[in-house]
């Protein structure tokens, strides 16, 4: 008699089911490593800021007029994909598609607004260490958003083909957690780049 | 053959012999005379005494630890060496977990923690001691690292007392000297082992250290951070002399070049070929790419400690610097034999 026979025989799920799915765990690890990447990016920002004794950091205070609404857009998109994931869990194809599509549209808005904001900055990636860090950090984030949009697009297509349902929707959950992750990262980036200059007592 | 060898070895290694062997091994580390031939050796230096003591201390602890662990390993291994050969694998007994000397592990843990905490505290105390010089420095120098030579500027609040030299530093014995470090290109490291530990020269920031020679002498230094092709040949010298000798040297260094060589053939060659990169104060030669040569002949070496400063070597260096230091910033000059002799005569007057 082996150990597994000593307990009541249980039905075990088969395949990619919810949080039992291998892909879910892999994505969690992926989030940890990408989160670490942003940690090091923000470390570079804070370190360079602290070491720049001679110059003003940043050269001028960042405007929140675009970045703040854009942050809201991203937060709402997280809500949208949450809604889509819930639809997948319930087997509700309409909700699934609506939520995913809304998240994609909001994501595209975020990217567009950010490109516009970049275009209107008085400094470039070449101007100074600050400029290099600003565009690189927001650029890395934007790249992650764009990858997220591709993932969501794939999810949308697969949803439309009816692949996911109440049992098998691990893919949607995996995409959703990635999307929430880049949202949280944006909050950290936003705080670092847009809020901390105001906290340092400059006006 | 093996059993006899083993038996013989364990018989030979009696406790007294073992101790003798360990002692002999340790003694070589403490033999000063044998180490006198290494100019960059710092275990017998003239720098802060407590750093040397700490170094000897951790070295001794390390050696003792290695000896003890090796001994334990050998005893643990050899005690099973002589047991009878075992039968087939399957019949082999296992040593049960009940004989689990985890206490041994705890004991070792506590012992190593105690030693490590002790060394940590000792380190902190020593670090606090050497963080600042024992008294206010009387001499201040600024060292700028270049690929692959040292620009040395003696500082003063009185601008007329400031002068620049290269690769060789004179200091008065017994007085701390403040050293400001910066770099013109890449990261270098200022290291004169007999006097002090290393501090890096990093472009974009000023690092500060101090040195103090408690006896007169000549102390060699070396760049200690990989800085490119000729990192191997970026040496320097610190010469600690009595206060009077130092003052005499300093006053000499302050003087500009006299007028006596104006118009000489050697000076013409120098102006044509060398002045672009080198400075001789008091003349039109004002190049800043290479070392200041105003008092070249007061230095014992050239090319940042690579060659002795003697006529043959000086000629060889000027004729073909790329042969001595391939990759150095001093190019092969288009210079014929006569020009070479002339410019060398000129340089030999730069006292």
């Amino acid at each position, binding site marked *: *008699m082996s*150990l*597994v026979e000593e307990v009541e*025989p249980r039905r*075990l*799920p*088969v395949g990619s*089911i919810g949080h*039992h799915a291998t892909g879910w*765990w892999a994505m969690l690890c992926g989030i940890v490593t990408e989160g670490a990447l942003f940690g*090091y990016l923000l*470390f*570079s920002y804070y370190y*360079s800021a602290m070491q720049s004794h001679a110059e003003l950091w940043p050269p001028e205070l960042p405007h929140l007029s675009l970045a703040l609404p854009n942050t809201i857009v991203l937060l709402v998109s997280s809500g949208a994909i949450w809604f889509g994931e819930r639809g997948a869990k319930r087997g509700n194809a309409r909700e699934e598609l609506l939520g995913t599509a809304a998240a994609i549209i909001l994501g595209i808005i975020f990217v567009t607004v950010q490109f516009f904001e970049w275009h209107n900055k008085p400094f470039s*990636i070449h101007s*100074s*260490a600050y400029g*290099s860090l600003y565009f690189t950090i927001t650029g890395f984030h934007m790249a992650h958003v764009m990858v997220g949009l591709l993932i969501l697009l*794939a999810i949308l297509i*697969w949803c439309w083909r009816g*692949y*996911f349902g109440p049992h098998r929707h691990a*893919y949607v959950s995996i995409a959703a957690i990635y999307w929430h992750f880049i949202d949280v990262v944006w909050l950290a980036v936003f705080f670092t780049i847009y809020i901390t200059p105001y906290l340092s007592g400059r006006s | 053959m093996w059993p006899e060898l083993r038996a013989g070895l364990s018989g030979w290694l009696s406790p007294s012999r073992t101790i003798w062997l360990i002692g002999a091994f340790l003694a070589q580390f403490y033999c000063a005379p044998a180490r006198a*031939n*290494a100019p*960059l*050796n710092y275990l017998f230096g003239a720098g802060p005494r407590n*750093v040397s003591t*700490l170094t000897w201390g951790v070295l001794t602890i390390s*050696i003792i630890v*290695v000896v003890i662990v090796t001994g334990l390993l050998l005893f643990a291994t050899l005690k099973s060496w002589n047991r009878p050969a075992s039968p087939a694998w399957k019949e082999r007994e*296992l*040593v049960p977990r009940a004989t*689990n*000397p*985890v206490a*041994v*592990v705890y004991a070792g*843990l506590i012992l190593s923690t105690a030693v*490590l905490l002790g060394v*940590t505290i000792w*380190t*902190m105390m*020593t670090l606090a001691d050497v963080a600042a010089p024992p008294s206010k420095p009387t001499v201040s120098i600024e060292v700028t690292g270049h690929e692959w030579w040292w620009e040395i500027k003696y500082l003063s609040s009185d601008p007329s007392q400031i002068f620049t030299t290269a690769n060789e530093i004179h200091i008065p014995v017994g007085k701390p000297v403040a050293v400001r*470090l910066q770099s013109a290109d*890449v*990261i270098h490291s200022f290291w004169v*082992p007999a006097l002090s530990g*290393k501090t*890096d020269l990093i472009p*974009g920031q000023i690092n500060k250290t101090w040195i103090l020679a408690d006896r007169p002498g000549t102390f060699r230094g070396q760049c*200690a*951070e*990989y*800085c*490119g092709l*000729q*990192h*191997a040949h970026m040496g320097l010298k610190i010469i600690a002399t009595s206060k009077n000798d130092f003052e005499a040297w300093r006053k000499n260094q302050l003087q500009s070049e006299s007028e006596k060589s104006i118009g000489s053939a050697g000076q013409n060659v120098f102006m044509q070929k060398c002045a672009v990169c080198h400075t001789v104060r008091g003349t039109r030669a004002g190049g800043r790419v290479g070392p200041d040569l105003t008092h070249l002949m007061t230095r014992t070496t050239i090319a940042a400690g690579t060659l002795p400063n003697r006529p043959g070597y000086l000629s060889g260096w000027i004729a073909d610097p790329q042969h001595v230091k391939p*990759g150095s910033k001093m190019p092969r000059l288009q210079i014929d034999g006569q020009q070479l002799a002339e410019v060398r005569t000129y340089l030999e007057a730069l006292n």
Partner: protein
Amino acid sequence: MTEIEYDRVPKVVEAIGRPELSARLRSFWESKPGLYGWLATVDHKTLGIRYIVTAFIFLGLGGIEALIMRIQLAQPNEHVLTPEEYNQLFTMHGITMILWYALPILTGFSVYLQPLLLGCRDMALPRLNAFTYWVFLFSGVFLYASFLIGAAPDAGWFNYVPLASIEQDPGPNIDFYALANIFLGISTTLGGVNFIVTILRFRAPGMSINHLPIMSWGTLTISVASVLSIPAVSLAFFLLWMDRHFGTHFFDPATGGQPLLWQHLFWLWGHPWVYIIVLPALSMVSQALPVCCRRPLVGYSLVALATVLTMVLGFGVWLHHMFATGLPTMALAFFSAVSLIIAIPSAVSLFSWLATIWTGRPDFTTTFYFFAGFIIVFVIGGVSGFMTASVPVDWQLTDTYFVVAHIHYVLIGWNLFAVLGALYHWFPKMSGRMLDETLGKISFWFIFIGFNVGFFPMHISGLLGMPRRIYTYSPEMGWSTLNLITSIGSFVLAIGLLITLVNVVRSLRVGRIAGPNPWDADTLEWSTSSPPPPYNFAVIPTVASRSPLWEDRLGEGQKSSPARGFVLDQGKETLGTTMLDAVPDVIVKMPEDSLAPLLLSLALAALFTTMMLEAWWWLAASAIAILVITVAWLWPRRSLGEIEGSTS
């Protein structure tokens, strides 16, 4: 198409005497023969051996680089190499050994062994496993392409700026290093992810966290550390590449950049890395030494905790590589203290091994010889590190040959000696044949003596002031004899390694047949045949202790059952279990062999090449290829249970 049900009760079966079961499982798990099978295989055993062979090839390349340097340094003022050649060699030697040998060799052993140790049929993500191997191989080829154009990286393996900036080093040398490093980082990070998921979720039922084989503790710990630390160095090299080619100002002091930012980012990865490349080796010793000593490891829990603690502390000491850079005294004091304290958990393993040998009855096999030699060089490497941890002492020792001695004692000592012992221990399992013991012992003595004769004198030349990274030195420095001895020792070491190579090649053909358990060892991999069948275990074993195969003789009353358990034969399946207690949790459907990993790594290689060449349209094309292949790879499949409903 097979119907994949949403759940089922898995059947329990006795594995012995069921040849039809073996044939059935083989039909699902065995790779097809021929070129397709070779290129598309996802079998962890094949991939593990590939990792090991490839890593040893890089060891050989790095070794040759070292030997050439030792010829140059054997005498003062030699002209065997120009300064530029020397600089490229010492840089490539460091890069190759530390990045392309030291972790991949341990990855190879773990990729091969972890599923077998844990009692499952493959790694959690088999296609990812294949991908990480191909990326490792191609990134190494990418790096070594630099030699073909005579432009190997030459700013040292730490690649400090500004020496590595575009102004100081305008050629492609540094770009090769930067891009190859980022490329390899993809493999290492994803490999870490694979191990984490495998070790946490794919264990045999009953293998609760305190029954985990000690080698899995090592692999798990460093996998988490890899995932957390590699982004730092990938970022550093990416920022450098940007500074070099896109006019950014991260590191350039003239425009507000910080040269020390490079050092912080580099060492934030670099220090954890040096623990990543030794802790699995130490855990291999902890795994195999008890087998040699015929007893369970003394203080298993302490050793497991010590492994984790060492790694955690390893994240808090990076500044000790920067003690000479002019940091504030408080920072120096803190990092010095932690660097000293980190020796404590390392010491735990040492005492555990000594106690295991002392109370055990060691078998004096080649494995044991290597492990005994390992203990001696472990301690020497450890104490030289202890010495450099003290700041005022480090100010003399850093950047001298003392540190070179230290790093080689910890790398060759902690990594290579353990690896060689592990090779002699697990070769029979991997190949079905025993390595020759006489050749093994001769090899050991050449390696042990050659290594110590070669590297011990470096402590002394370092104490006598010999700096690192110098292509020559003059005779009046007093280092000449020491360098000559070192050079001779290094060749003796090389001969020792060659003898092991000969042993391997010879034993593959004429070695004694091993059988399933030639060492009478205790863990699950020894319950399979040698080599194991493609599916590893005909039934998923259940375990009740750390030493399942020794339970009856240790008499502690546990009841593992290696030969009775879930059969999971409805396709290519294995079992997922819960994280802490290893309760059966899910039946995992495993992917078939696939060319996608190979194709994706080729596309990535193309991408990095286009970055080298700054060919932006081609870059866009390779990015599209990457996208297409990734989507094809991840397209939901019914066979993996990823699609709702069954086929009609």
